């Protein structure tokens, strides 16, 4: 759980470096600077503790999400996440029922209800584990591209990533599922996180965003060839 991830990790909030981030990057004058400015207005450039593995992964994931959602204007689909939230909510519901019932009818009269709730709770935990391991895997974004003609079903883009503990190699996998043909194509890259973060722990979008775009375009162009 959360306690198992990086020891002593602290995420410095983006708000801490408001003035400094705006200066150097504003004046690049390239065609993409408009996009970078937009990112900076919503969130300050992401600055995290570079030694905290989970903060690094989270910020890389979030930025990849932002690229897909903002640059390519895809729409996020929350189905997978909602599934996990529902399972957890139902589990907590069983726990609350057990708690209240036991309080109203002290043990041993509450034994059958308690037994039922406990068993249901652990069954839900099992379902949750299966769900996160097999259905969700390490996917953190499911985005839809609405078909402009409105005739074909949506194309689905999925992002999943992995970053091993104490390792610096970050793997990002982009999966494209065509709405029409239901075919699945994937592209991924594995790079050291040192390529994307500067020495102070700020994520450099200039280095990261092209990687994402490259993955995306490699999958999108294949489609055109077909």
């Amino acid at each position, binding site marked *: 759980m959360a306690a198992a991830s990086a020891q002593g990790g602290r995420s410095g*909030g*983006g708000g801490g470096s408001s003035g400094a981030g705006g200066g150097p990057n504003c004046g690049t004058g390239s065609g993409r600077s408009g996009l970078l400015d937009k990112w900076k207005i919503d969130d300050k450039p992401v600055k995290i503790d570079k030694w905290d593995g989970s903060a690094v992964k989270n910020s890389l994931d979030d930025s990849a999400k932002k690229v897909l959602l903002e640059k390519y204007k895809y729409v996020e689909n929350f189905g997978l996440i909602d599934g996990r939230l529902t399972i957890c909510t139902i589990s907590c519901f069983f726990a609350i029922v057990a708690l209240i019932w*036991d309080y109203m009818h002290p043990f041993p009269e509450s034994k059958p209800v308690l037994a039922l709730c406990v068993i249901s709770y652990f069954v839900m935990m099992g379902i949750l584990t299966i769900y996160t391991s097999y259905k969700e895997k390490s996917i953190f974004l499911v985005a839809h591209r609405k078909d402009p003609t409105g005739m074909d079903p949506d194309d689905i883009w999925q992002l999943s990533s992995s970053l091993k503990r104490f390792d610096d190699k970050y793997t990002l996998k982009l999966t494209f599922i065509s709405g029409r043909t239901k075919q699945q194509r994937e592209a991924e890259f594995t790079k050291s996180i040192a390529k994307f973060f500067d020495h102070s722990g700020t994520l450099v979008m200039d280095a990261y965003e092209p990687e994402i775009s490259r993955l995306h375009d490699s999958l999108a162009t294949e489609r055109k060839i077909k």
Partner: protein
Amino acid sequence: MVRAGAVGTHLPASGWDIFGDLRKMNKRQLYYQVLNFAMIVSSALMIWKGLIVLTGSESPIVVVLSGSMEPAFHRGDLLFLTNFREDPIRAGEIVVFKVEGRDIPIVHRVIKVHEKGNGDIKFLTKGDNNEVDDRGLYKEGQNWLEKKDVVGRARGFLPYVGMVTIIMNDYPKFKYALLAVMGAYVLLKRES
């Protein structure tokens, strides 16, 4: 357009923002943080209730608080109890019982048992390390204990582990501070 940084809680000297993770989250992620905390609490609760159902005892794990059962049990030992109705209570066995009106369970040995034909029993207890039997501990006018007073029978034990519970009960502020820190950690830190 320059937007002022979001209002947050900063420790001025170190620039450490404890709500940093939370501020970057959308509604669903915030709900998941709360759920995560609730699930940890629920898991602990369900394990405890599960033990209660399995053992049939209302308090399946107890800590020995006094030295009245030395050298068998010492202060700070953890005891695992079961309370199955079919188990007969015989002289020489160690039982954990609660005296009516008091809510601290006592761990002592059964020294005398009277049993009726239909299975009703009354029994007398005494701590191994005590000079006298427990009649002084029972309720006013009560000379015997009955099955309904029994919380469970000791089935296994772990030495010294219960000292943590004793310390936390002697210094409740420490307990609450520890729980608060653990709760804050789970609520505020984003799970990957």
